[in-house]
């Protein structure tokens, strides 16, 4: 293509077409996702509390640097409590665990107790 007017025409049209296709897509969002949301609410309902408890613990650990023994007990109690209280199938529980780790952004392979251990090292 060497005709500048043609390039301009192609350019302007492409930009409008591309962005208009995105608009079409976005206009469908509210309906689609409001339907999706209701399902999610049911599925994920019990999760937040667990996450919250762990987060509080994590923050407490990070801020107060309490001794490792306390934290370890806390984790043990927490784990046991959750396992006991839910008495549910292993799969879902294990994934909830995984969820917490990721949500806290600890990432890769330092587990919560690893960090606790680290913070409390003398």
């Amino acid at each position, binding site marked *: *293509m*060497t005709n*500048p*007017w043609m*390039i*301009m025409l*192609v*350019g*302007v049209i*492409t*930009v*409008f*077409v*591309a*962005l*208009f*296709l*995105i*608009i079409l*897509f*976005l*206009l469908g*969002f*509210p309906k689609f*996702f409001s339907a*999706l*949301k209701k399902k*999610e609410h049911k599925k994920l309902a019990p999760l937040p509390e667990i996450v919250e408890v762990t987060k509080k613990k994590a923050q407490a650990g990070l801020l107060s640097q309490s001794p490792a023994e306390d934290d370890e007990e806390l984790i043990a109690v927490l784990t046991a409590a959750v396992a006991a209280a839910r008495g549910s199938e292993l799969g879902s529980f294990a994934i909830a665990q995984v969820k917490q780790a*990721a*949500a806290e*952004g600890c*990432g890769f392979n330092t587990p919560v107790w690893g960090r606790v251990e680290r913070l409390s090292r003398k």
Partner: protein
Amino acid sequence: MEAFFSHFISSTGFIAMTWGQLIMLTVSCILLYLGIVKEYEPLLLVPIAFGMLLANLPASGITDGPKDGLVGGLIYYLYQGVKLGIYPPLIFLGIGAMTDFGPLIANPWSLLLGAAAQLGIFIPFIAAYYMGFDLKSCGSIGIIGGADGPTAIYVTSRLKPELLGPIAIAAYSYMALVPLIQPPIMKALTTKKERLVKMAQLREVSKAERVVFPIFVTILIGLLLPAAVPLVGALMLGNLFRESGVTERLSDTAQHALINTLTIFLGVSVGSTASAARFLNPQTLMIIGLGLFAFSCGTAGGVIFGKIMYWITKGKVNPLIGSAGVSAVPMAARVSQVVGSKEDPTNFLLMHAMGPNVAGVIGSAVAAGVLLTVLE
């Protein structure tokens, strides 16, 4: 011994210095002044200006490639990331991780304003053609009107690397000058009644929408315009890191260590292309002029399309948000807010202008894809 000293002295830069280099050193100091004291886009203008300064110190060899078994200069190596098109997409990764597409998702029609403002790319493209530039230069000059640094540098590095210096400097300078360039155009093109329009509150956007958006846009734009994939893909991957909620580590690094490091490297090496030999010629002045023209066209394009939307919606859209379609995030959106609040201090256009503002980033990436497809 005299010969000895005179030999050593002849190797200093004082002797080798040309008038052009002296002028460029002055220009770089002015740019540093604008960046530091006037705070015009300092994050890029300071590295660019310093790179320009370093490149115009005679005989330092800091931009020379390797030869005769001697290794190259520092900036020669840093420049490879520009030349190979690596830095701009990775900077877009960081920008994506910093960008909130929520206002755009809440008000999809604002994408049209982001499209209209790309006239700021194509009209100067034509103008440059009739001023005698070859097509590749025209594309590089036009992209200044995209008001988006990494996009301008990416396109220019592929089409016309010789023009990197003036184009990058024009793009970043005018982005900083948006609060001065846009208001007169906005006022001239709108009526008081239009400027007084208050827009309806935006709806809340769910996390799921935010996550699906970058994935979808990548696929759509990627299929429509393969040449835009590096820019759009990186922008959207960064945004996905941000919005997914499970990759905060990556989002954090993309927004800080990675983008800052590459900003330094990009700025210094782009600035270094503005050596006296390359920079001081009539072309540069024309590019600087066309850049201003480009920003004005983009602003006008957005505002005019805003007026069209005002008419179609029977007064529900304030045309002032159209000017934000040029990108220059978030300055252009702020200008919409400021101009609007001058008419009515209780009118809060900021969030409404953010939609066209981020749409402008996508729009200029698409326009860049067209130019690369057609001209590369």
